[in-house]
């Protein structure tokens, strides 16, 4: 096992975005790595070591054995863990946009909050965010018709609007509240919201959604099927099918809901 600690150096302008797609475990397997890793800070390309201090503990032979630990202000570090296939990334603070983009395997744990597009179009692996996730968590990017296809995303806090947009496979769990149009255009997979959200699963064509809190602005084009008792806590939930406006065959379990006035 190797633990690589990346400690962010103080920055003159901490708001400048850092394009950090090189921060994936496979780039840190070898002792001599990182050799040529660079990041774009604003419009300047910098060597990774100019931006972070690296400390290595242990040795590794494959990416599975690598853990990256990001320490300090990483709230503007974008695309960390992009296309990651194995290993683990631990982020001690907040993380910038697009963390876990198109990730295929391994695990990312964020102790703070995540900015927009967390785990966008993820294919496999696990992402856990102990804080809040901003908009478009576990969704597809602009114009994309398929969002997350596999793996697991868990947000312990709240999530923003368009969470799990175009969800196609895998599971997304939000322990707090989620924003407007959560699960919009969902086509497969499982979405679980423990808190409240609004206009959930609009235009869905497939997959299963659960909302254990309150749904505001319930979409009227879902067909009520039955009432069911769900889970070990025996929660009484209404079961809907839809979105029939889109000839959808999704299933939606909702505890409490309100139609728009």
């Amino acid at each position, binding site marked *: 096992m190797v633990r690589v600690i990346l400690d962010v150096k103080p920055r003159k302008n901490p708001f400048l975005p850092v394009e950090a797609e090189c921060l994936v475990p496979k780039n840190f397997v070898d002792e001599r790595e990182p050799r040529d890793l660079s990041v774009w800070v604003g419009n300047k390309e910098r060597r990774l070591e100019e931006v972070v201090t690296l400390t290595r503990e242990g040795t590794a032979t494959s990416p599975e054995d690598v853990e990256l630990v990001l320490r300090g202000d990483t709230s503007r570090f974008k695309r960390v863990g992009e296309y990651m296939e194995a290993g683990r990334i631990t982020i001690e603070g907040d993380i910038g946009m697009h963390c876990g983009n198109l990730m295929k395997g391994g695990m990312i744990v964020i102790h703070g909050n995540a900015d927009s597009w967390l785990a966008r179009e993820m294919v496999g692996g696990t992402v856990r965010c102990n804080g809040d996730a901003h908009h478009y968590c576990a969704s597809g*990017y*602009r*114009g*994309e*018709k398929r969002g997350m296809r596999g793996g697991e995303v868990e947000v312990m806090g709240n999530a923003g609007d368009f969470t799990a947009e175009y969800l196609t496979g895998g599971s997304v769990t939000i322990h707090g509240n989620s924003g407007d149009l959560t699960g919009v255009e969902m086509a497969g997979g499982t979405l679980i919201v423990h808190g409240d959200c609004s206009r959930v699963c609009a235009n869905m064509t497939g997959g299963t959604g659960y909302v254990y809190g309150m749904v505001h602005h319930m979409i009227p084009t879902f067909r009520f099927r039955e009432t069911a008792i769900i889970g070990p806590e025996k929660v009484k939930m209404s079961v809907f099918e839809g979105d029939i406006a889109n000839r959808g065959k999704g299933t939606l379990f909702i505890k409490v809901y309100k139609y728009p006035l």
Partner: protein
Amino acid sequence: MSELLIRHACVVDPVNRISGEIMDLAVRDGRIVESVSDRAEVIDAQGFLTMAGGIDSHTHICGTKVNFGRYMSPEDMRAGRTLKKGQMHSTSGYSVPTTYGNSYRYATMGYTAVLEGAMAPLEARHTHEEFMATPLQDTMANVLFDGNWPVMEAVRDRDVKRVAAIVAWVLTAVKGFAIKITNPGGTEAWGWGKNVTCIRDPVPYFEVTPAEIIETLIRANEILRLPHSVHLHCNNLGTPGNYSCTIGSMDVAPDLNKERQSLYVTHVQFHSYGGTSWKDINSKAHVVADAVNRKPHIVIDMGQMMFGKTTTMTADGPMEFNLYKLHHNKWSNHDVELETGSGIIPVYYSRKSIVNSVMWAIGLELALLIKNPEQCLLATDNPNGSPFVKYPEIIALLMSNPYRQAEIATLPPETESRISLPAIDRELDWNEIAMMTRAGQGRALGLRKLGRGHLGLGAIADIAIYPLSIGAIDPSKEYTRVIEALRLTRYTIKNGKVIARDGEILSNRNKTTIWVRPKIPEQHRMDHDPDFIRNFERYYTVRMSNYPVQEAYVPESTCIETEAVW
């Protein structure tokens, strides 16, 4: 005075009957000349394939619907990004790239002139603005007349001279190049919730048929002596069984011009389907090719479809709506008052689909079954059939039967009984490819006499040199080398200046927009016609005086003045 000498060029120039001769080309002030002084800049072509600059006679690269294609598909903009480098702007987009993306990619493939296939007159300013941002190709625009109210009224009144006068006024006003008719009458009918099934269906209210629109516009075109012929996108695009409508439309065309065709029928692949539904669709390319072989006054372009992702865009609004119902993906439709409309949807052509496989075969069959390559030009209706960056693959397919057979082997086996491609063993040679990609276009657009599409004395020095020694390879076997070589020129030269070398762009700007001003007798001009003026002010939301595109929109332009035979 600027001089250039290209040494050891292996020239293929069918117009001047030069077929793979190693020779020198002398250029002075942008034109091919007999010889130059010894102060001339020298380029060593190393015996590589050298042809006139490529001309695309039907492509969609500029204007409102192209731009809509860009902003409705951010995922397409993310594909194919290139960084700013030297003189080059950054570019993005795959099927609908930025204007610079289009211009650079055409330039590095050796293309120096392009015709935008469909410009709605009312929205001409947008097209010209994007032409200005397309810095390395000469640009021309087809002007849409398929649902033009004053034209349809004049057609109904059987007044061909009035049709000609309206066309003359509009072409001059919008700085257009040629007459385009897209699904004649169909887009207007769609405004009434209808369509036309073929050329004999009347358009609601106007009570004229597509056949009448086509024939009258062809006659008007020749009255005005326009360089290009009428450019037709037939009714019924993409419908199984539409081949008979396509042939019927060709039958309507009279033979009126000795120098070039009287009717250009575009993207004929989309119009050569047999069968009665998507389930039994088959190729009728052989029937359509027969018709073209019997009619020397018709020129078509292939409209080749290639597998992969692209965006479809056309003035044929109802057709795009039908496609949308098939795919259920994003879709846009647009009406242009009194004139035409448009529709756009992204598509994915799959090798696993029998329908797509049949479409792929039809384009190639047309090119291989039409005897005279100047009657079947190479185009994909970019980006409808595929982005133009696939032209090298299409050329390789036309030159190599083994390549075609290898591709056919990857298609669903049910395809084979529906197409004739497996049995066609014709392999085109470099002369024929030159005809299909530059010489034929020069003739079809009426620009051969103006020095385009060939390398004869006095011709415009638009030259493409590809890193390929054609004497040393067999395109039938070494088709991958053909593809590689045609993707990136060693040199692309425009007006005697090198604009691209090995994929790098070396020029900021080198272009002109070619437009047409037909002169008709003063008393017949539409700007003096009380009826035309009254109806214009009554129905358009813009004033007639604000309608014409100002000169400021065509800062670099070449106006062809024609004298109408009245």
